[in-house]
């Protein structure tokens, strides 16, 4: 769960919008990858499969992101894991995840997955109460495990293709479907509807903490994978796509019956 769910990193809404605008501008100005000559069918097939026509631009942002990471995010996350004891880190992670439940629920419902929506609702109710404001994940032990859900995934289930690979600053790897889906998820979040200085500050803190939490969860998986790669950019691209495909496949395959166990003539699956 924590292994890779941090690819879509969050941050404050305004900064993100500004960055997205700047990104669009730079994308328009920057060059595209040159396709290989048609005389080399193997190379052409590779190029199509890689599906990264904006690779030169993406690589620039990948480098920019690594720079931001090296001077800001990574040191913060390192300090966080050094200072905060593991049980407290888990608590923070659980609480942040619990706060995201409304977005999950909305997407579960839009995907037409009633049992997933039920899981999310049960998790939110149980963890917010018995789990002391979401600090403890009691629901997993009670048979309501965590699953991911976001608008990019919803669009995929509606049949929207991913489109070419995109690497955006802060947001990281993505594609037109998932990256714009992220914007919808922010808009779906009830906590982003409330205004007032205290709430806004709390939201800033939450986004900041999410960023650190996600970054810390990646020390173990992503950092090691890229350290061992000859081309870290391509490795991240491959990992991101595979991870997304697996998440989408899991959502698609989850067709549990909505009838209770005692109901007669329940289909096997």
């Amino acid at each position, binding site marked *: 769960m924590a292994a890779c769910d941090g690819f879509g990193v969050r941050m404050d809404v305004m900064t993100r919008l500004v960055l997205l605008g700047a990104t669009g501008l730079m994308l328009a100005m920057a060059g595209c990858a040159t396709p290989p000559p048609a005389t080399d069918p193997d*190379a052409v097939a*590779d190029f199509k499969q890689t599906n990264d026509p904006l690779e030169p631009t993406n690589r620039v942002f990948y480098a920019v992101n690594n720079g931001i990471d090296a001077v800001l995010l990574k040191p913060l996350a390192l300090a966080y894991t050094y200072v905060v004891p593991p049980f407290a880190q888990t608590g923070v992670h659980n609480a942040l995840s619990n706060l995201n439940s409304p977005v999950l629920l909305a997407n579960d419902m839009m995907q037409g997955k009633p049992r997933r929506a039920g899981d999310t609702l049960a998790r939110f109710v149980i963890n917010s109460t018995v789990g002391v404001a979401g600090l403890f994940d009691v629901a997993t032990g009670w048979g309501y495990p965590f699953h991911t859900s976001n608008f990019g995934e919803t669009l995929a289930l509606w049949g929207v293709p991913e489109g070419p690979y995109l690497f955006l600053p802060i947001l990281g790897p993505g594609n037109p479907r998932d990256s714009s889906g992220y914007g919808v998820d922010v808009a779906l979040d009830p906590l982003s509807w409330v205004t007032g200085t205290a709430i806004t500050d709390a939201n800033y803190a939450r986004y900041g903490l999410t960023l650190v939490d996600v970054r810390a969860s990646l020390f173990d998986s992503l950092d090691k994978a890229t350290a061992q790669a*000859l081309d870290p950019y*391509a*490795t991240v691209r491959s990992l991101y796509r*595979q991870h997304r495909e697996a998440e989408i496949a899991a959502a698609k395959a989850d067709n549990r019956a909505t009838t209770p166990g005692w109901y007669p003539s329940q289909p096997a699956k």
Partner: protein
Amino acid sequence: MHMLTRRSLLTASLATVAAIGLGALPRMARAQTPAQASAFVEQAGKDLIAVVNGPGSAADKQAKLKQIVDQVVDVDAVGRFCLGRFWRTATPAEQQQYLQLFHQVLQKNVAGKLGDYQGVTFVVGRATPRDGGTVGVATVVTRPNVAPANVEWVVSSSSGSPRIVDVVAEGTSLRLTQRSDYASFLAHNNDSVQALMDAMRKQLSQPG
């Protein structure tokens, strides 16, 4: 002494490659039941844990881990897969050198993760037949202070005995990821397998 064992293992595996006829994947995948694949993964996991949590210095353990990798992983098959279309265009000498380097890189990567495996436990779940006569064995791997991870082990018996050909962690395939890494490197280095091997040698010369 372990050097000797390793060397003989390496020679043996290279001899196997030569016997197969360099490159032609043996497609006579022998019948393999999901139960056999499960038992194999269970045993391989137990061996690994016994080394990691057992006695001995870190260097001893790393040497043993390298041996286990050679015993339970069909390294040649994985290596060929990772080179993709360039395997066909490489010369026999390049293929042999590449596989040798691939062995070493894989061993180094696994041995380098010794610290991460500390206190690891795993539970074997369902085994499902997959493409090409392989079997996917689902496991849940748990490490201290890390959320449990779903890891699938793809087992093939095309080499005669069950061997691991892929590890799929939370939906991401290790060999697919490795292949895209190599493919991208080759694409940016004039499709030169020599350049790839130079980069692999550089990786091996780095500490850790």
